[in-house]
């Protein structure tokens, strides 16, 4: 898979890692971008915050109700105490348990990670064990909270030089993902995990079973499109896959401009009204040519190669 020269894929190719599974298949993983992870974290923190605010308000409301109805203080103190216990434990569980339990599940991702299309995986291609999930989440405090606490307090000067030193020291943990290739945070490092993209693509239809790709002729006008060797030789895989996207999206204005560009390039006189049939036929014949070359080991990455 060396043919990844397509410019729009270059930044992804840098994040690609092949993990060899136990049965010897090289499975491609894309390391999740730091921005996707930051976004996922923000969503999760928002969820935790909203949940805890809602629960706190509900508990306050319940406690308020107790004060109104219960006349004697002694009757209700047990209930109030229970509410306090519940709140303390709830907060501890929510803060520490949310990430762990979600990541131990079959999708290995919190709600935020799911929304960002990423998940936690084991770095060496084995199973993601519960211990690993626990380990990576226990370090969250020193990566996230202590840095913020020290960053807030250091500039005020109350803590002096020691505060600034501590802030710089914890900043190392906060910025850890920026100092390594796989964007590992400290928790990932000690747990042997990483965060990868978890794409969920749906299978699109086969393009060569329909329309002019199959018949070679337009259903609309009956015109038959046949391209010669020289006309097909100008494009490579990148252009083919761009054309595929245009055909699958099916936006008329895009079809039109691509149609014109190709006609200009191969020296045909661009007509109008039958762009889709033209492009389908061109796509099918270009792909047939490139794939048959491929079977003989000849690959053409793009029009420049």
């Amino acid at each position: 898979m060396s043919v990844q020269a397509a410019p729009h894929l270059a930044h992804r190719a840098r994040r690609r890692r092949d993990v060899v599974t136990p049965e010897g298949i090289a499975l491609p993983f894309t390391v999740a971008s730091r921005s996707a992870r930051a976004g996922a974290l923000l969503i999760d923190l928002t969820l935790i915050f909203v949940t805890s605010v809602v629960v706190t308000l509900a508990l306050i409301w319940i406690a308020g109700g107790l004060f109104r109805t219960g006349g004697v203080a002694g009757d209700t103190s047990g209930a109030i105490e229970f509410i306090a216990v519940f709140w303390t434990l709830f907060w501890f569980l929510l803060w520490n348990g949310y990430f762990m339990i979600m990541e131990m599940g079959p999708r290995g991702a919190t709600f935020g990670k799911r929304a960002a299309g990423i998940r936690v995986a084991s770095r060496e291609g084995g199973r993601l064990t519960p211990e690993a999930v626990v380990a990576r989440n226990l370090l969250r405090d020193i990566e996230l909270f202590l840095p913020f606490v020290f960053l807030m307090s250091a500039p005020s000067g109350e803590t002096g030089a020691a505060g600034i030193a501590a802030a710089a020291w914890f900043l190392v943990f906060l910025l850890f993902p920026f100092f390594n290739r796989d964007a590992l945070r400290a928790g990932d490092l000690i747990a042997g995990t990483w965060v990868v993209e978890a794409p969920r693509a749906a299978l699109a239809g086969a393009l060569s079973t329909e329309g002019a790709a199959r018949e070679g002729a337009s259903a609309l006008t009956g015109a038959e499109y046949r391209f010669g060797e020289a006309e097909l030789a100008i494009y490579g895989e990148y252009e083919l896959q761009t054309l595929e996207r245009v055909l699958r999206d099916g936006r008329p204005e895009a079809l039109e401009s691509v149609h014109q560009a190709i006609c200009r390039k191969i020296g045909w006189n661009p007509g109008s009204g039958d762009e889709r049939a033209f492009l389908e036929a061109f796509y099918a014949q270009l792909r047939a040519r490139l794939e048959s070359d491929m079977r003989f080991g000849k690959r053409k990455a793009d029009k420049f190669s």
Partner: protein
Amino acid sequence: MKAPILKTLFGKAEVAPPPDIEAAALRSDRFRLEREHDWRRLEDIVARMEKGRLRGLSDEDVLALPALYRTAASSLAVARETSLDAATLEYLDSLVQRAWFQVYGPRQGFVAWLRGFLGGGLSRAIRAIWLDICIALAVTVAGTITGWLLVAQDREWYYAFVPAQLADTRVPGASREVLLESLQVEKDAQGLSAFAAFLFSNNAGVAILAFALGFAFGIPSLMLLIHNMAMLGAILWLYADAGLTLEFAAWLSVHGTTELFAILLAGAAGMHIGRSMAFPGNRSILAAAAESGRRGAQVMVGVVLMLVAAALLEAFPRQLLGMEGRLIIGCVMLLFWLAYFFAFGRERKGDPA
């Protein structure tokens, strides 16, 4: 990507018609149409597993999963070399990856893991870090003695070690009665469960911090241990000075044997990570960190459970029992933890590890 026509053709609800394989003009599309049915079946099984609906899976589906996974994986390998259909390649990449996560996913749920963990996993992890526990224990003892000696030399040190809000009435020069009062038995259990919950969440936070700081080669974990133990040494001196050593030991030991042990383990687990990163041996630093990190994490789950027990002990028996009761409970808890960690769950000789 929007493909309205294709969506209706291959919509989920409708049963996909047998694909018109001969109609495909391209060899790679024929390849794809011939195998598409298996891919879709695999995708369906995987989607159900991801939602955690394992009961909805029939036996045939479960048996078919590994075979379907291998089919899809080999389709992917072939397609990469013969097909230029970007959408199909992307689909196969994601399908094989998702199936791989399910085939090699965690075989046990949270409950099964917890059972294995309590039934020996925790004990084994703790025995594996024995050296770090010894170091942490040495540091603990050294810290306590240091605190004691410093305060015995110069009382001003007491205020450096013990924060004011904690010291309360326990300050040097306080009379024996005042100190004894601070060890008193509470009259009833009111307010104690809230106190227990607070203690637990506070102590667990400290323990997690001690563990997490071990990442920096273990030094901060050690410093945290020394600081806390020096404080203990200082208070111990205060009570010993007033001739209340046994009373204070009883007061402390109810929960202290559990709590101090837990904090000791947390520090040791943190140090274990720091030590294996500083001295990885023949492994790479990353591999060493990952291995010790997972072991440390198991210890930390145990630490959190111990702190739950400690908080309960601290809130109820400590405040409600007399001196003898406190001492007995403290010793029993210590023996229990020692037996559980160091004698329980050993592999019999001859068992494969």
